[in-house]
Protein backbone atom coordinates (compact mmCIF):
# COMPACT_ATOMS: atom_id res chain seq x y z
CA UNK A 1 0.00 0.00 0.00
CA UNK A 2 1.47 3.27 -1.08
CA UNK A 3 0.76 5.67 1.74
CA UNK A 4 3.44 8.26 1.47
CA UNK A 5 4.50 8.53 -2.09
CA UNK A 6 7.17 11.14 -2.24
CA UNK A 7 8.36 13.32 0.58
CA UNK A 8 11.37 14.37 -1.31
CA UNK A 9 11.89 18.04 -2.04
CA UNK A 10 8.66 18.78 -0.27
CA UNK A 11 6.57 16.68 -2.66
CA UNK A 12 3.99 14.79 -0.72
CA UNK A 13 1.00 12.83 -1.74
CA UNK A 14 -2.02 11.38 -0.06
CA UNK A 15 -1.90 11.15 3.68
CA UNK A 16 -2.13 13.34 6.67
CA UNK A 17 -0.56 16.75 6.22
CA UNK A 18 0.85 16.93 9.72
CA UNK A 19 2.63 13.64 9.16
CA UNK A 20 4.06 14.68 5.82
CA UNK A 21 5.23 17.98 7.24
CA UNK A 22 7.15 16.10 9.92
CA UNK A 23 8.87 13.96 7.33
CA UNK A 24 9.70 16.94 5.16
CA UNK A 25 11.15 18.67 8.20
CA UNK A 26 13.22 15.59 9.00
CA UNK A 27 14.52 15.42 5.43
CA UNK A 28 15.34 19.12 5.46
CA UNK A 29 17.35 18.73 8.61
CA UNK A 30 19.05 15.47 7.68
CA UNK A 31 20.20 16.81 4.31
CA UNK A 32 21.29 20.18 5.61
CA UNK A 33 24.78 21.02 4.39
CA UNK A 34 24.42 19.34 1.01
CA UNK A 35 23.43 20.96 -2.24
CA UNK A 36 21.92 20.03 -5.56
CA UNK A 37 22.04 16.41 -6.68
CA UNK A 38 23.83 15.23 -3.56
CA UNK A 39 21.08 16.64 -1.41
CA UNK A 40 18.31 15.29 -3.60
CA UNK A 41 19.86 11.82 -3.63
CA UNK A 42 20.22 11.69 0.14
CA UNK A 43 16.63 12.85 0.54
CA UNK A 44 15.47 10.18 -1.90
CA UNK A 45 17.36 7.53 0.01
CA UNK A 46 16.04 8.62 3.39
CA UNK A 47 12.48 9.16 2.18
CA UNK A 48 12.33 5.62 0.81
CA UNK A 49 13.66 4.35 4.11
CA UNK A 50 11.03 6.30 6.08
CA UNK A 51 8.35 5.21 3.65
CA UNK A 52 9.30 1.57 4.29
CA UNK A 53 9.17 2.00 8.04
CA UNK A 54 5.85 3.84 7.90
CA UNK A 55 4.32 1.14 5.72
CA UNK A 56 5.44 -1.60 8.08
CA UNK A 57 3.84 0.19 11.03
CA UNK A 58 0.70 0.86 9.02
CA UNK A 59 0.39 -2.81 8.10
CA UNK A 60 0.30 -3.65 11.78
CA UNK A 61 -2.66 -1.29 12.20
CA UNK A 62 -0.90 1.86 13.41
CA UNK A 63 -2.60 5.11 12.33
CA UNK A 64 -0.60 7.13 9.82
CA UNK A 65 0.38 9.94 12.15
CA UNK A 66 1.58 7.52 14.82
CA UNK A 67 3.33 5.42 12.19
CA UNK A 68 5.25 8.46 10.99
CA UNK A 69 6.16 9.38 14.56
CA UNK A 70 7.46 5.87 15.20
CA UNK A 71 9.34 5.79 11.93
CA UNK A 72 11.05 9.10 12.64
CA UNK A 73 11.87 7.98 16.16
CA UNK A 74 13.45 4.88 14.71
CA UNK A 75 15.42 6.98 12.26
CA UNK A 76 17.06 8.80 15.16
CA UNK A 77 18.08 12.45 15.26
CA UNK A 78 18.24 14.06 11.81
CA UNK A 79 21.25 16.03 12.94
CA UNK A 80 23.20 12.81 13.36
CA UNK A 81 22.76 12.09 9.65
CA UNK A 82 23.57 15.64 8.59
CA UNK A 83 26.66 15.85 10.79
CA UNK A 84 27.88 12.44 9.62
CA UNK A 85 27.35 13.27 5.97
CA UNK A 86 28.74 16.78 6.35
CA UNK A 87 31.89 15.30 7.81
CA UNK A 88 32.40 13.57 4.46
CA UNK A 89 31.48 16.50 2.31
CA UNK A 90 31.78 19.81 4.11
CA UNK A 91 35.27 20.94 3.24
CA UNK A 92 35.20 20.40 -0.51
CA UNK A 93 31.58 21.52 -0.61
CA UNK A 94 32.25 24.77 1.19
CA UNK A 95 35.09 25.55 -1.16
CA UNK A 96 32.92 24.84 -4.18
CA UNK A 97 30.02 26.80 -2.72
CA UNK A 98 32.19 29.81 -2.11
CA UNK A 99 33.55 29.75 -5.64
CA UNK A 100 30.13 29.11 -7.14
CA UNK A 101 28.49 31.82 -5.04
CA UNK A 102 31.13 34.34 -6.10
CA UNK A 103 30.65 33.41 -9.75
CA UNK A 104 26.86 33.53 -9.59
CA UNK A 105 26.74 36.79 -7.68
CA UNK A 106 29.11 38.36 -10.19
CA UNK A 107 27.00 37.19 -13.11
CA UNK A 108 23.83 38.36 -11.36
CA UNK A 109 25.31 41.78 -10.77
CA UNK A 110 26.08 42.09 -14.47
CA UNK A 111 22.72 40.78 -15.63
CA UNK A 112 20.54 42.04 -12.79
CA UNK A 113 17.66 43.60 -14.73
CA UNK A 114 17.22 40.64 -17.08
CA UNK A 115 17.62 38.02 -14.36
CA UNK A 116 15.26 39.77 -11.97
CA UNK A 117 12.60 39.81 -14.62
CA UNK A 118 13.06 36.14 -15.48
CA UNK A 119 12.85 35.12 -11.82
CA UNK A 120 9.49 36.73 -11.18
CA UNK A 121 6.97 33.91 -10.70
CA UNK A 122 3.88 34.01 -12.86
CA UNK A 123 1.53 33.59 -9.90
CA UNK A 124 2.82 35.66 -7.08
CA UNK A 125 1.32 35.52 -3.64
CA UNK A 126 2.28 38.58 -1.65
CA UNK A 127 3.67 37.80 1.73
CA UNK A 128 0.69 39.36 3.42
CA UNK A 129 -1.50 36.98 1.46
CA UNK A 130 0.43 33.79 2.06
CA UNK A 131 -2.14 31.06 1.81
CA UNK A 132 -3.20 29.40 4.95
CA UNK A 133 -4.45 26.08 6.10
CA UNK A 134 -7.99 25.30 5.03
CA UNK A 135 -8.97 24.18 8.51
CA UNK A 136 -7.47 26.81 10.78
CA UNK A 137 -7.08 30.54 10.51
CA UNK A 138 -3.90 31.39 12.27
CA UNK A 139 -0.63 31.72 10.48
CA UNK A 140 2.23 29.33 10.91
CA UNK A 141 5.88 29.15 10.21
CA UNK A 142 5.29 26.35 7.71
CA UNK A 143 3.64 28.72 5.26
CA UNK A 144 5.47 29.35 2.04
CA UNK A 145 6.06 32.90 0.93
CA UNK A 146 7.09 34.45 -2.32
CA UNK A 147 10.83 35.00 -2.53
CA UNK A 148 10.52 38.41 -4.13
CA UNK A 149 8.07 39.62 -1.51
CA UNK A 150 10.24 38.32 1.27
CA UNK A 151 13.29 39.93 -0.30
CA UNK A 152 11.53 43.30 -0.42
CA UNK A 153 10.42 43.03 3.19
CA UNK A 154 13.84 42.04 4.48
CA UNK A 155 15.67 44.65 2.45
CA UNK A 156 13.39 47.33 3.87
CA UNK A 157 14.89 46.32 7.20
CA UNK A 158 18.51 46.42 6.06
CA UNK A 159 18.82 42.66 5.65
CA UNK A 160 20.53 42.10 2.32
CA UNK A 161 19.09 39.36 0.14
CA UNK A 162 20.68 37.79 -2.93
CA UNK A 163 18.51 35.40 -4.85
CA UNK A 164 20.31 32.52 -6.53
CA UNK A 165 17.76 30.43 -8.32
CA UNK A 166 15.23 29.36 -5.68
CA UNK A 167 17.68 29.94 -2.87
CA UNK A 168 18.52 33.01 -0.84
CA UNK A 169 21.71 34.37 0.58
CA UNK A 170 20.74 36.52 3.56
CA UNK A 171 23.10 38.98 5.18
CA UNK A 172 21.98 40.29 8.54
CA UNK A 173 24.10 43.27 9.70
CA UNK A 174 26.77 42.07 12.09
CA UNK A 175 26.53 38.42 11.02
CA UNK A 176 27.89 36.30 8.23
CA UNK A 177 25.91 35.45 5.12
CA UNK A 178 23.42 32.60 5.46
CA UNK A 179 22.18 30.31 2.69
CA UNK A 180 18.48 29.45 2.72
CA UNK A 181 17.06 26.83 0.40
CA UNK A 182 13.82 27.58 -1.44
CA UNK A 183 11.97 25.37 -3.90
CA UNK A 184 8.61 24.08 -4.93
CA UNK A 185 6.04 21.97 -3.17
CA UNK A 186 3.21 19.68 -4.14
CA UNK A 187 0.41 19.07 -1.69
CA UNK A 188 -2.95 17.35 -1.57
CA UNK A 189 -5.57 19.15 0.53
CA UNK A 190 -6.60 17.08 3.51
CA UNK A 191 -9.86 18.77 4.42
CA UNK A 192 -11.90 21.86 3.76
CA UNK A 193 -13.54 22.86 0.51
CA UNK A 194 -10.66 21.56 -1.62
CA UNK A 195 -10.21 18.19 0.08
CA UNK A 196 -8.45 15.79 -2.27
CA UNK A 197 -7.27 18.50 -4.66
CA UNK A 198 -3.56 18.46 -5.41
CA UNK A 199 -1.77 21.73 -6.01
CA UNK A 200 1.81 22.73 -6.58
CA UNK A 201 3.62 25.89 -5.70
CA UNK A 202 5.59 27.74 -8.25
CA UNK A 203 9.27 27.64 -7.76
CA UNK A 204 10.41 30.89 -6.28
CA UNK A 205 8.92 30.26 -2.88
CA UNK A 206 10.45 29.57 0.46
CA UNK A 207 9.08 28.26 3.72
CA UNK A 208 9.21 30.83 6.53
CA UNK A 209 10.36 28.19 8.93
CA UNK A 210 13.25 27.29 6.65
CA UNK A 211 14.43 30.88 6.64
CA UNK A 212 14.24 31.21 10.39
CA UNK A 213 15.89 27.87 11.07
CA UNK A 214 18.76 28.74 8.76
CA UNK A 215 19.29 32.04 10.55
CA UNK A 216 19.03 30.47 14.00
CA UNK A 217 21.40 27.67 13.05
CA UNK A 218 23.95 30.24 11.99
CA UNK A 219 23.79 31.81 15.44
CA UNK A 220 21.58 34.75 14.56
CA UNK A 221 19.00 35.44 17.29
CA UNK A 222 15.53 34.59 16.00
CA UNK A 223 12.17 34.62 17.71
CA UNK A 224 8.84 33.58 16.33
CA UNK A 225 5.40 33.93 17.77
CA UNK A 226 1.93 35.20 17.05
CA UNK A 227 -1.50 33.87 16.42
CA UNK A 228 -3.51 35.54 13.67
CA UNK A 229 -0.38 37.39 12.68
CA UNK A 230 3.16 36.10 12.65
CA UNK A 231 5.64 38.02 14.77
CA UNK A 232 9.23 37.45 13.83
CA UNK A 233 12.33 38.94 15.40
CA UNK A 234 15.58 38.59 13.48
CA UNK A 235 18.55 40.02 15.36
CA UNK A 236 17.37 43.53 16.31
CA UNK A 237 14.63 43.67 13.64
CA UNK A 238 11.01 42.93 14.26
CA UNK A 239 8.46 41.92 11.64
CA UNK A 240 4.77 41.27 11.74
CA UNK A 241 3.36 39.20 8.91
CA UNK A 242 -0.34 38.85 8.26
CA UNK A 243 -1.95 36.22 6.10
CA UNK A 244 -5.21 35.87 4.26
CA UNK A 245 -6.66 32.59 3.10
CA UNK A 246 -7.06 32.30 -0.62
CA UNK A 247 -8.39 28.97 -1.80
CA UNK A 248 -8.18 30.01 -5.44
CA UNK A 249 -4.53 30.92 -5.45
CA UNK A 250 -1.97 28.79 -7.21
CA UNK A 251 0.56 28.69 -4.44
CA UNK A 252 0.13 27.47 -0.93
CA UNK A 253 1.35 25.35 1.85
CA UNK A 254 -0.52 23.72 4.67
CA UNK A 255 0.84 22.79 8.02
CA UNK A 256 -0.12 22.68 11.64
CA UNK A 257 2.68 24.18 13.64
CA UNK A 258 2.37 27.38 15.54
CA UNK A 259 5.60 27.34 17.44
CA UNK A 260 8.47 29.39 18.69
CA UNK A 261 12.04 29.13 17.56
CA UNK A 262 13.30 30.86 20.65
CA UNK A 263 14.89 27.70 21.93
CA UNK A 264 16.97 27.39 18.77
CA UNK A 265 18.47 30.82 19.03
CA UNK A 266 21.27 31.57 19.27
CA UNK A 267 22.50 28.00 18.79
CA UNK A 268 26.07 28.27 17.50
CA UNK A 269 26.15 25.05 15.53
CA UNK A 270 28.24 26.86 12.97
CA UNK A 271 29.83 30.17 12.38
CA UNK A 272 31.95 30.77 15.44
CA UNK A 273 35.48 32.08 15.64
CA UNK A 274 37.79 31.56 18.54
CA UNK A 275 37.84 34.56 20.83
CA UNK A 276 39.46 32.95 23.83
CA UNK A 277 41.96 30.14 23.81
CA UNK A 278 43.00 28.54 27.02
CA UNK A 279 44.39 25.37 28.47
CA UNK A 280 42.62 24.28 31.61
CA UNK A 281 45.27 22.68 33.78
CA UNK A 282 43.26 23.10 36.97
CA UNK A 283 39.60 23.36 37.75
CA UNK A 284 38.51 26.08 38.31
CA UNK A 285 41.03 27.95 36.21
CA UNK A 286 41.65 31.66 36.60
CA UNK A 287 41.95 33.44 33.32
CA UNK A 288 42.12 37.00 32.11
CA UNK A 289 38.77 37.17 30.36
CA UNK A 290 37.89 40.21 28.34
CA UNK A 291 34.15 39.63 28.36
CA UNK A 292 30.94 41.32 29.44
CA UNK A 293 28.14 39.89 31.50
CA UNK A 294 25.52 38.31 29.27
CA UNK A 295 27.86 37.77 26.31
CA UNK A 296 27.26 34.46 24.61
CA UNK A 297 30.08 32.17 23.62
CA UNK A 298 30.25 28.88 21.81
CA UNK A 299 32.48 26.32 23.42
CA UNK A 300 34.93 24.15 21.55
CA UNK A 301 36.80 21.50 23.40
CA UNK A 302 40.02 20.48 21.74
CA UNK A 303 41.80 17.20 22.12
CA UNK A 304 44.96 16.19 20.35
CA UNK A 305 44.82 14.72 16.92
CA UNK A 306 45.87 11.25 17.97
CA UNK A 307 43.25 11.08 20.68
CA UNK A 308 40.58 12.45 18.39
CA UNK A 309 41.33 9.89 15.72
CA UNK A 310 41.32 6.93 18.06
CA UNK A 311 38.13 7.92 19.77
CA UNK A 312 35.96 7.55 16.74
CA UNK A 313 38.14 5.15 14.80
CA UNK A 314 38.64 7.62 12.01
CA UNK A 315 42.20 7.84 10.77
CA UNK A 316 43.85 11.13 11.63
CA UNK A 317 44.38 11.96 7.97
CA UNK A 318 40.61 12.02 7.45
CA UNK A 319 39.97 14.33 10.39
CA UNK A 320 42.92 16.67 10.53
CA UNK A 321 41.29 19.16 12.86
CA UNK A 322 40.58 18.05 16.34
CA UNK A 323 37.87 19.80 18.28
CA UNK A 324 34.27 19.38 19.12
CA UNK A 325 31.57 21.88 19.83
CA UNK A 326 29.13 21.06 22.51
CA UNK A 327 27.34 24.02 24.00
CA UNK A 328 26.87 27.72 24.35
CA UNK A 329 27.67 29.58 27.53
CA UNK A 330 26.69 32.95 28.93
CA UNK A 331 29.14 35.15 30.72
CA UNK A 332 28.11 35.36 34.35
CA UNK A 333 27.88 38.40 36.62
CA UNK A 334 31.44 38.05 37.90
CA UNK A 335 32.81 37.75 34.36
CA UNK A 336 33.30 34.01 34.64
CA UNK A 337 32.23 31.14 32.41
CA UNK A 338 30.96 27.76 33.48
CA UNK A 339 31.37 24.93 30.98
CA UNK A 340 29.20 21.87 31.47
CA UNK A 341 30.58 18.87 29.64
CA UNK A 342 28.09 16.32 28.36
CA UNK A 343 28.14 12.62 28.91
CA UNK A 344 31.20 11.41 27.06
CA UNK A 345 29.24 8.65 25.34
CA UNK A 346 27.11 11.27 23.65
CA UNK A 347 29.77 13.65 22.41
CA UNK A 348 29.61 14.30 18.72
CA UNK A 349 33.11 15.00 17.48
CA UNK A 350 33.42 17.38 14.65
CA UNK A 351 36.12 19.40 13.02
CA UNK A 352 36.91 23.01 13.70
CA UNK A 353 36.26 23.71 10.04
CA UNK A 354 32.61 22.75 10.50
CA UNK A 355 32.04 24.55 13.73
CA UNK A 356 34.05 27.71 13.46
CA UNK A 357 33.80 28.99 9.95
CA UNK A 358 31.80 32.15 10.48
CA UNK A 359 30.28 34.60 12.89
CA UNK A 360 30.11 34.67 16.65
CA UNK A 361 32.66 34.08 19.35
CA UNK A 362 33.87 30.87 20.88
CA UNK A 363 35.98 29.71 23.75
CA UNK A 364 38.50 27.09 22.68
CA UNK A 365 39.35 25.01 25.69
CA UNK A 366 42.22 22.57 25.65
CA UNK A 367 41.61 20.00 28.29
CA UNK A 368 44.02 17.76 30.05
CA UNK A 369 42.69 14.28 30.31
CA UNK A 370 43.22 10.71 29.33
CA UNK A 371 41.79 8.10 27.04
CA UNK A 372 40.00 5.44 28.97
CA UNK A 373 38.18 2.54 27.34
CA UNK A 374 38.30 4.35 24.03
CA UNK A 375 36.62 7.46 25.43
CA UNK A 376 38.06 10.79 26.37
CA UNK A 377 37.98 11.13 30.10
CA UNK A 378 37.64 14.75 31.10
CA UNK A 379 39.29 16.15 34.15
CA UNK A 380 36.81 15.85 37.00
CA UNK A 381 34.41 17.29 37.84
CA UNK A 382 32.53 17.55 34.55
CA UNK A 383 31.72 21.18 35.20
CA UNK A 384 34.66 23.42 34.36
CA UNK A 385 34.83 26.96 35.58
CA UNK A 386 36.85 29.76 33.98
CA UNK A 387 37.17 32.53 36.53
CA UNK A 388 38.25 36.08 35.81
CA UNK A 389 41.47 37.39 37.26
CA UNK A 390 40.83 40.04 39.87
Amino acid at each position, binding site marked *: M*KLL*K*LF*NRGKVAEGDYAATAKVTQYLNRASRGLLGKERA*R*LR*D*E*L*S*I*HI*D*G*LVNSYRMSGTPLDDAVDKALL*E*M*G*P*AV*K*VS*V*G*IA*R*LNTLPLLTMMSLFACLVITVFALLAPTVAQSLTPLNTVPIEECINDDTTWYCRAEDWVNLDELKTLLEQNNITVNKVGDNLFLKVPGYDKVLVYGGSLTYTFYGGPQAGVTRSTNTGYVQIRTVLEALATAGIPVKLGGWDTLNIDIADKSFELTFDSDYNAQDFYIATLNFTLTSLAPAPSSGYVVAIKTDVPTNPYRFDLDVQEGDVYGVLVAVNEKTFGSL*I*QIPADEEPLAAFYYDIVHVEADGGLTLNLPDM*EEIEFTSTAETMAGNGKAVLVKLTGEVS*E*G*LYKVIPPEEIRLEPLK
Partner: protein
Amino acid sequence: MKTKLLKGNLDLILLSILEDTPKYGLEIIGEARGRTNGYFKFGEGSLYPALHRLEKNKLVKAEYQPSDSGGPQRKYYHLTAKGEKYLAKEREDYDTFHSAVKALWGTE
Protein backbone atom coordinates in the same frame (compact mmCIF):
# COMPACT_ATOMS: atom_id res chain seq x y z
CA MET B 1 25.45 -3.90 22.57
CA LYS B 2 27.87 -1.21 23.61
CA THR B 3 28.01 1.78 21.30
CA LYS B 4 31.77 1.89 21.23
CA LEU B 5 31.99 -1.74 20.12
CA LEU B 6 29.54 -1.06 17.35
CA LYS B 7 31.35 2.08 16.23
CA GLY B 8 34.63 0.23 16.14
CA ASN B 9 33.27 -2.56 13.99
CA LEU B 10 30.65 -0.80 11.90
CA ASP B 11 32.56 -1.14 8.64
CA LEU B 12 33.10 -4.84 9.21
CA ILE B 13 29.41 -5.35 9.98
CA LEU B 14 28.16 -3.40 6.98
CA LEU B 15 30.59 -4.98 4.52
CA SER B 16 29.69 -8.43 5.84
CA ILE B 17 26.01 -7.76 5.28
CA LEU B 18 26.65 -6.56 1.75
CA GLU B 19 28.91 -9.47 0.91
CA ASP B 20 26.33 -11.70 -0.75
CA THR B 21 23.86 -9.46 -2.49
CA PRO B 22 23.32 -5.75 -3.05
CA LYS B 23 21.04 -4.21 -0.46
CA TYR B 24 19.44 -0.85 0.34
CA GLY B 25 19.39 0.90 3.71
CA LEU B 26 16.28 -0.59 5.28
CA GLU B 27 17.30 -4.07 4.16
CA ILE B 28 20.73 -3.65 5.69
CA ILE B 29 19.29 -2.72 9.08
CA GLY B 30 16.79 -5.59 8.91
CA GLU B 31 19.53 -8.03 7.97
CA ALA B 32 21.78 -6.83 10.80
CA ARG B 33 19.00 -7.36 13.30
CA GLY B 34 17.70 -10.58 11.79
CA ARG B 35 21.01 -12.38 11.43
CA THR B 36 22.12 -11.51 14.97
CA ASN B 37 18.79 -12.02 16.74
CA GLY B 38 18.51 -8.30 17.37
CA TYR B 39 21.99 -7.88 18.83
CA PHE B 40 23.08 -5.34 16.22
CA LYS B 41 20.63 -2.50 16.55
CA PHE B 42 22.29 0.45 14.90
CA GLY B 43 20.28 3.49 14.06
CA GLU B 44 19.65 4.95 10.67
CA GLY B 45 21.55 8.03 11.79
CA SER B 46 24.70 5.95 11.96
CA LEU B 47 23.95 3.86 8.90
CA TYR B 48 23.81 6.43 6.15
CA PRO B 49 26.92 8.41 7.04
CA ALA B 50 28.77 5.08 7.29
CA LEU B 51 27.47 3.85 3.93
CA HIS B 52 28.37 7.12 2.26
CA ARG B 53 31.84 6.96 3.79
CA LEU B 54 32.33 3.41 2.50
CA GLU B 55 31.14 4.58 -0.90
CA LYS B 56 33.52 7.52 -0.86
CA ASN B 57 36.36 5.19 0.03
CA LYS B 58 35.32 2.97 -2.90
CA LEU B 59 34.70 -0.03 -0.67
CA VAL B 60 31.10 -0.18 -1.82
CA LYS B 61 29.40 1.04 -4.94
CA ALA B 62 25.84 2.28 -5.14
CA GLU B 63 23.44 1.71 -7.99
CA TYR B 64 19.96 3.04 -8.39
CA GLN B 65 17.11 0.70 -9.20
CA PRO B 66 13.41 1.45 -9.62
CA SER B 67 11.37 1.26 -6.44
CA ASP B 68 8.43 -1.15 -6.41
CA SER B 69 6.30 1.60 -4.84
CA GLY B 70 6.82 3.87 -7.83
CA GLY B 71 8.62 6.57 -5.84
CA PRO B 72 12.23 7.63 -6.14
CA GLN B 73 14.76 5.00 -7.23
CA ARG B 74 16.23 2.86 -4.49
CA LYS B 75 19.93 3.07 -3.82
CA TYR B 76 21.44 -0.41 -3.63
CA TYR B 77 24.92 -0.85 -2.22
CA HIS B 78 27.26 -3.66 -3.21
CA LEU B 79 30.84 -4.52 -2.45
CA THR B 80 33.59 -3.48 -4.85
CA ALA B 81 36.69 -5.61 -5.43
CA LYS B 82 38.51 -3.25 -3.07
CA GLY B 83 35.72 -3.73 -0.54
CA GLU B 84 36.00 -7.51 -0.78
CA LYS B 85 39.74 -7.36 -0.11
CA TYR B 86 39.21 -4.93 2.74
CA LEU B 87 36.55 -7.16 4.27
CA ALA B 88 38.82 -10.20 4.09
CA LYS B 89 41.60 -8.25 5.80
CA GLU B 90 39.26 -6.85 8.47
CA ARG B 91 37.91 -10.33 9.13
CA GLU B 92 41.39 -11.72 9.50
CA ASP B 93 42.35 -8.90 11.89
CA TYR B 94 39.19 -9.42 13.89
CA ASP B 95 39.76 -13.19 14.13
CA THR B 96 43.33 -12.63 15.25
CA PHE B 97 42.23 -10.11 17.86
CA HIS B 98 39.40 -12.34 19.03
CA SER B 99 41.73 -15.36 19.36
CA ALA B 100 44.26 -13.27 21.26
CA VAL B 101 41.65 -12.06 23.74
CA LYS B 102 40.33 -15.58 24.19
CA ALA B 103 43.86 -16.82 24.76
CA LEU B 104 44.31 -14.09 27.33
CA TRP B 105 41.27 -15.34 29.16
CA GLY B 106 42.42 -18.92 28.89
CA THR B 107 39.35 -19.91 26.94
CA GLU B 108 41.04 -20.61 23.59
